[in-house]
């Protein structure tokens, strides 16, 4: 097992120089993206990440403009969640830069990043069992004046108002997803990191989540969306980064994704 690991490691090391030149072109592509001219809200530059000795991200560069939805598409284990955790400052074994509004976040703590305007919705929704629905909403501080008021939250998610005194984890999966998104909107996050919001949910709820994403996009919030459901990704996003083995292998506009959907589905193994 460890032999195989080290073999793969050395393979990766050997490839690194050649990889770099290929990623450079991808990065250049990214800079010529459809958002050209709009200053980036989030810009991740040459980010690499490790778990111990194992490298899980290699020189990844990603940008998200205000009011833009960019997706990270790729197989399980491609490094999508690690990228979100690195942006949030939760994954610490990283190299490269993450900037918000042009200022480097450096080694700032997750709580400082959250207060700077990054809202994370983890793949398990991250709802607290020992907090009521309302407490789950009230826990994070309000960090920006674009924050949703409780009235607005309850107006958009009436089910949360009905269940405000329930323990957070007594909600259904879809309701927990709504709660997790509502929580960062009430905070006033300007950049949302959404980790597979559609996973395991009924189509009607996925559709509702799509509507919400389009609405917050219209308000100028930037969204970096991890998604395996290509159809859903295409319905809400502007651009797509295709991740494979920790690298951005393709950067596609929505139309390009549509044109190559069947090919990509094969590639993604979905």
């Amino acid at each position, binding site marked *: 097992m460890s032999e195989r690991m080290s073999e793969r490691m050395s393979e990766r090391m050997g490839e690194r120089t050649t990889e770099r030149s290929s990623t450079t072109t991808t990065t250049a592509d990214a800079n010529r993206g459809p958002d050209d001219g709009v200053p980036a809200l989030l810009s991740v530059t040459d980010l690499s990440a490790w778990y111990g000795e194992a490298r899980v991200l290699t020189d990844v560069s990603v940008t998200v403009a205000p009011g833009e939805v960019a997706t990270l598409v790729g197989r399980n284990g491609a490094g999508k969640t690690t990228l979100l955790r690195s942006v*949030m*400052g*939760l994954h610490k074994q990283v190299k490269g830069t993450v900037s918000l509004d042009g200022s480097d976040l450096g080694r700032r*703590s*997750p*709580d400082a*990043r*959250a*207060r700077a305007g990054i809202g*994370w919705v*983890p793949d398990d929704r*991250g709802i*607290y*069992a*020992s*907090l009521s629905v309302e*407490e789950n909403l*009230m*826990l*994070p*501080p309000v*960090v920006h004046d674009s924050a949703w008021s409780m009235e607005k939250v309850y107006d958009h998610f009436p089910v949360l108002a009905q269940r405000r005194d329930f323990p957070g984890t007594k909600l259904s999966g879809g309701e927990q997803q709504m709660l997790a998104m509502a*929580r*960062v909107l009430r*905070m006033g996050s300007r950049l949302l990191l959404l980790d597979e919001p559609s996973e395991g949910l009924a189509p009607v709820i996925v559709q509702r989540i799509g509507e919400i994403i389009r609405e917050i996009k219209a308000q100028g919030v930037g969204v970096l969306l991890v998604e395996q459901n290509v159809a859903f990704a295409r319905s809400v996003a502007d651009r797509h980064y295709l991740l494979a083995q920790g690298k951005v292998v393709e950067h596609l506009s929505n139309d390009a994704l549509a044109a190559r959907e069947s090919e990509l589905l094969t590639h993604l193994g979905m």
Partner: protein
Amino acid sequence: MSEFIQYTLQGLAAGGFYALSALGLAVIFGVLGVVNFSHGACYMLGAVIAAVLLAELSLGFWVALVVVPVIMFGFGVLMERLLVQWLLALDPLYNFLLTFGLTLILVEAVKLRYGVSGLPYEIPAGLGGQVTVGSVNLSVYAIFACVFSVVLCLAVGLLMTRTRIGMIVRAATEDPGRTRALGINVGRWVTPVFGFGIALAGLAGVLAAPTRAITAEMGSNFIIILFAVVVIGGLGSILGAVVAGFLVGLVEAYGVAYAPAYAQIVIFVLMAAVILVRPSGLFGREEVA
């Protein structure tokens, strides 16, 4: 029957000491992930400081009830700032060993200064003697200790459920990393929570002082039972710590009264039974596979 009621009262009084201390152990474990082995020693220090305040400064029980928790809070803050914080990033075993070592130091230091025979402490004036309810004679101090612990546990419960600090502590207990990612500076609460937990142990020590032999070793058996309490209640559960504290106090009192030969093991039989039926304790959350 009247004996049974007396044992119940004794059990609830002892349970109050366990409940208060276990509450401290639970919040410290929840927020810092530290299993504080020195909790028994802090309980002992609470009682010893109360005895010393009385002997050397003539400050009585009521003063000790206020002053000792304040001193122990300061002690906890120092302990966390000087020692515990440096090991937080490492395996939890390191802080377990640190606090175990600290326990040995505290116990030996108290022995060195005050010897091994118990320090004297009396039931404060006004709380001595017995009161007759119906045909049953009850110790006034035991009633006081029960009521005081229950009120204090309720107050901590209100603090945890009704205030923003309590909400943050509950959230951080569930998942510190995620709570930071929601913009909460969890680190800011670590030191006060540790001090608070230690203060509760010290307070339990003061409450126990009039009814126990105050010796350097009084915390050694106490901490073992305290671990049984948190396992029964569910590690990290605040409500569990309180309920299991009173439960263990009762079981212990009945054991001593009706099965003295087995008194030492009843609690651990109870613990084993709870683990068999509910591995994560009475109020612990089931681990998600």
